[in-house]
């Protein structure tokens, strides 16, 4: 089978995000970047499926030259080919989905796996837009019933289960109040939640191999996609700061404050 996964470049989740004083964006000096953690889970799941069912894993990313770093990371984890959509400006989720639709039409994967959201925009939309644009089934927030301590996880068994005929995929979804299982006919779009798997580290050999793996470059204009954003940011600001807290000497004082000052108990 052929699987397409995404690898968005985002700020390191461990880094401190600060808003620029003029409200036009965030401070990027000295920022470290990583593959979106949810996309990394998508890459891992794709690799496990390929290991079990044979096939090819293609990874796509959109951005300036710097996103090659995240594509190489996915290649080092084990993807066989990268597609780089070279576009430097701001994009909204509709445009991202429209670009991915073109990649899907060129690559013709049986399954597209994306992170449920990227940790910068936090929109949680692209997979759903893409599924509708393609007219495919969707299974968002893919999760796994077993714990990360399970034998299945240690053996890197895929959580997404292909049907016996290889024409469908069964997905356990993390929803409010429980787990919902759905079965999608292939081709389908799946988005990953945090509990789907624990991504592998890229091995040294993987990193070496990634340097010579193919990376195709595409441009939005050549794909015929209008990427002018329909969602525009008017301004960004920091969330309201918290007033300086106090240290209380003992439990009695704490309970008194909670009851009479904060009035939360």
């Amino acid at each position, binding site marked *: 089978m052929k699987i397409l996964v995404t690898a968005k470049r985002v700020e390191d*989740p*461990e880094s401190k*995000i600060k808003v620029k004083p003029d409200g036009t964006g*965030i401070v990027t000096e000295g920022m470290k970047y990583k593959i979106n953690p949810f996309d990394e889970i998508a890459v891992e799941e794709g690799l496990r499926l390929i290991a079990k069912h044979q096939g090819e894993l293609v990874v796509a990313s959109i951005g300036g030259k710097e996103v090659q770093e995240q594509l190489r990371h996915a290649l080092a984890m084990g993807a066989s080919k990268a597609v780089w959509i070279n576009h430097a400006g701001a994009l909204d*989720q*509709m445009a991202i*989905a429209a670009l991915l639709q073109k990649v899907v039409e060129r690559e013709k994967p049986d399954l597209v796996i994306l992170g449920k959201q990227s*940790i*910068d925009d*936090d929109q949680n*939309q*692209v997979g*759903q*837009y893409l*599924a*509708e644009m393609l007219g*495919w*089934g*969707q299974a*968002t*927030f893919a999760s796994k019933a077993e*714990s*990360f*301590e399970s034998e299945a996880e240690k053996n890197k068994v895929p959580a997404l289960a292909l049907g016996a005929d290889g024409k469908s995929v069964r997905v356990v*979804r*993390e929803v*409010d*109040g*429980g*787990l*919902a*299982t*759905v079965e*999608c*006919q292939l081709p*389908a779009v799946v988005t990953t939640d*945090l*509990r789907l798997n624990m991504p592998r580290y890229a091995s040294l050999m993987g990193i070496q191999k990634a340097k010579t793996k193919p990376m195709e470059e595409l441009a939005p204009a050549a794909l015929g996609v209008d990427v002018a954003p*329909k*969602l*525009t*940011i008017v*301004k*960004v*600001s920091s*969330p309201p700061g*918290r*007033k300086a*807290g*106090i*240290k*209380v000497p003992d*439990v009695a004082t*704490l*309970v008194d*404050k*909670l009851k009479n000052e*904060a009035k*939360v*108990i």
Partner: protein
Amino acid sequence: MPIVLIVAEQQPDGALRKATLNALAAGAQLAQKAGAELHAVALGKDVAALAEQLKQHGPKVVHAASAPAFEHYLAETFAPAVAELAQSLGADYVGAASTAMGKDLIPRVAARLKAAMASDVMKFDGSGADVTFTRPMWAGNVIAEVKLGTPVKAFTVRATEFQPAPAGGAGEVRAFAPAAAPSGATRFVEFKEVKSARPELTEARVVVSGGRGTKGDFKEIEALADELGAAVGASRAVCDAGWVPNDLQVGQTGKVVAPQLYIAAGISGAIQHLAGMKGSKTIVAINKDPEAPIFQVADYGLVGDLFKVLPELRAAIKAAR
């Protein structure tokens, strides 16, 4: 008159999901700013009772679509129906609470309506056609005011930012029969309720979270949570260590919570974690290390061993209530 259409949500047990009432309040706020009328739509196997309930909470019209095809929620069956209704009404805004269903459904509806979308909206500003949507980015470390430049605009709202719409309205219920639902490529298999006597982490009024300081022993965390009727949360470190299930994780890559009271015990306060709970109304931190960064965001800090403090706190709260 422009129309704001809110999609209601029915729980697997048939009851109205509470977050829908918050979404209706948000819809009313948007309708007021946009000079629009509030409508709601409910889809399910039988939504007659649900529609009767909904009409009391603000919408002028509740569109009720009862059909066997809607027994189990699936984006592929719900999205065409909602989009069809939005089109026939000429709705300008389509939204829902940002629950698992809202997040799954609304972008798919938006794609059908060629609508741009804002997720997790906390506030609406502006007026008329220039309404803006305020929403969190980078796990709430950044608040963005955005504009949507498409004729139809889609959104989900963060339920905790809006008080539930009160009862007392008198809307009208209209039956709505969408064109034959396409047989989607996706089939519902089963729903397994994760039984917990405790409230949902993202909906709870009080959250008690444990970190590395618990060394994996959550007994005191759970006992305090149960005393307060609270949800239990955890830092990434304890989830990664396999001490508690990952779905308890509060943080940038876990759940983002904003309860009235957040109690962090044995949590140092990594940026990752703070991003997931900074929006809480009152934060209490209990930590052995007086220099722990968690104290910088806590309203009330108590330096001490959580295994001594938590049982005392539980007894004192019990006595104080």
